[in-house]
Every structure is written in C-alpha cells, then in structure tokens.
C-alpha cells in the first residue's frame, strides 16, 4: 500500500511541476531513476520509444508505463491518476475564473495576442514534426543527408488527400500507417 501511495505522490509532483507537455516530464523521470531501484535509465529509453509508438498523449503513456513497471496494472492506474490530479484542480479553477470574466476587457485583450502566439507555437510544433518525418533532422541542425523521398511523396499525397476529402483525421492516419508498412518506410 505504502509503495502505491509513494508512486501516487511522486507522479503528483511531476504533474505539478512539469509545465508544457509530455517531454517536459522526462527530467523528472530521471530524478526518480536516481532515487529508486525499480526504474532504470534503459527503461526510460524504452518508455520514450513505446510512448511515441502507441496512441495516447505521451505524458500519460509514460506514467502508465512507469507505474506498470512498479506494480502492474494497479500501478499504472495510480501513477496516471497522480499525474493528472494537479491538472484537474488547476484547470477547473482557471476555467471557473474564465467563465466569470469572459466578457472583461482585460481577459479579451490578453487573449487577443495570446491566440496568434499559440497558433505560432502550434505551427512550430508542426514544422518540427514535418522536419523529423521527411528530413529526419531538427530545424536547427538542418541537413539534406537523411532526406527521405518516400516520406516527401506521402506528405504531398496526404496534403491533397486531406484537402480534397472530408474524412475524419483517423482515416488519413490509418492510410499513412498502412502505406508505411507496405512500402517499408
């Protein structure tokens, strides 16, 4: 029992301090690794690979994986609940405030510039996903050496496919996965 309680609080801490998405939890997981024997650096490496190659938000996948290594299915539930507890409380408080002050000039002004900024951040995330998928490289260390022509063709095909049809995004994802397997991407 106390092991599960410890697991819950360790992930509660991560949920409280990891700001900005799944990868932000990584440094905290390395802290856990140096504190406890049930988590190793190799496991963290595996975990990143598995989180990236399964559906679901990465941060949640990581918590589930680490919790499972600690104490099976119940461990994954406890770790994930620990991770999301602070989010739920903080977001409900903010949502509550937002609903009350939705019409206030101050809130409107802040969001007026926040929206284009958030769009810029999302565009940047999209750009790095595309760079990694087609050129297998980061934007800041750009190189043509690993350029993947098959991926570029799929990229162009998917742009046309998603613009010309009204299918749910999952259809495009499923087709891309199938093409990846068929043509050994």
């Amino acid at each position, binding site marked *: 029992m106390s092991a599960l309680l410890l697991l819950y609080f360790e992930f509660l801490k991560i949920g409280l301090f990891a700001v900005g998405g799944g990868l932000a939890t990584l440094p905290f997981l390395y802290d856990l690794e140096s504190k406890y024997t049930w988590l190793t650096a190799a496991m963290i490496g595996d975990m990143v690979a598995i989180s990236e190659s399964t559906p679901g938000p990465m941060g949640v996948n990581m918590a589930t994986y680490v919790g499972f290594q600690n104490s099976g299915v119940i461990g994954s539930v406890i770790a994930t609940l620990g991770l999301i507890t602070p989010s739920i409380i903080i977001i409900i408080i903010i949502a509550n405030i937002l609903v009350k002050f939705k019409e206030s000039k101050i809130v409107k002004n802040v969001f007026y510039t926040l*929206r284009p*900024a958030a769009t810029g951040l999302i565009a940047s995330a999209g750009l790095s996903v595309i760079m990694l998928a087609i050129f297998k490289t980061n934007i800041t260390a750009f190189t043509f050496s690993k350029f993947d022509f098959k991926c570029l063709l799929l990229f162009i095909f998917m742009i046309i496919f998603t613009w010309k049809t009204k299918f749910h995004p999952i259809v495009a994802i499923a087709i891309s996965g199938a093409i990846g397997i068929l043509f050994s991407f």
Partner: protein
Amino acid sequence: MKVLLELFITFAKMGVVTFGGGYAMLPILQRTVVDDKKWATEEEILDYYAIGQCTPGIIAVNTATFIGYKQKGILGGISATLGVIFPSIIIIGIISAFLKNFSDLAVVQHAFAGIRVCVGVLILNAVIKLWKGAVKGKVTAAIMFFVLIISAFTDISSVLIVIAAGIFGLFFAGKIQNKGAEKK
C-alpha cells in the same frame, strides 16, 4: 449522467487516435469537439492550448478538463480527463505485459514512419484553420510569425513566450484595435 458518459466515451475515442502528444490531438479535437459535437469554438480550443501551455500538466489532459468542465462542471472535467487517459492505460498495460520489444518490431517502425508524416500534415491543416480565428490583421499576423520563428530556432521556453504574449496584449491590444492598425 448521460452527458458524463458521452464526455468519457468521446474523449476515450480521441485518446485512441492521438499519436504523439498534445499537438497531435489538435486536428482530432477540431473535428470532434468543434465540428461534430459543437462543445467549443476554434477560438476556445486555441485559448485552452495557450493556457495548457503555461500551466502544469499535459496539454491533452488540460484541454480535456477544460472542455469537460465547460459542458458539465467539475464532474464533466473529471469524466473527459479520465476518458482521454483510459485507452493509454489499457494499451500500455498490454504492451508492457506481453510485448516487451514492441517498439523494435519492424512493422511498428514502418507504420509510425508513415503516421508521423500524416501527423505533420494534420497539424499543418489545424494551423490553417486556427489562423482564421487568431489572426485579425497585420499586428496579430506579425505576432504569429515572430512566435513561430522564436519557437522553432531558439531554446526559449514556450511558457515564457505565452506569458510575454499575454502581457503584450494586456497593455497594447486595446491600442492596436482602436488605432485601426489591424487593417488587413
């Protein structure tokens, strides 16, 4: 009760089809929450992302809590959030128990090389949709491109970028709109 169940199931479905973190979930959210269910507008989703970016926790979870709370209060927020994490627990549980070398399998690697390309395209499409709600003229367009460049080419944290953009709006948004500097 019916609404809570609907929130749970809808977000569980989105959890299944999200590959790779909060941003990858955005195109799915736009289709399901904005177009189909009409639970939020494009602008609201963008606001949630901006807030999710600078509050603790995972963006996908924060967004789920926001939308659930808006529909059905605190219980709604909890239902949507539990929904979005539910598939992860099942899938990762199965993989951890039975497929230790899942991510090394050739077929998985090929599939994900294809899926990553698609996720890139979907995020690009999401940005084009968001553009219409967020960019009202020259100044907001400049903010968008400035943030894109800063975020892509420097290590400046997105938390700082969001806070700076908010403070800028607090002091200057009124002036920008009044002076008509936002003419297209």
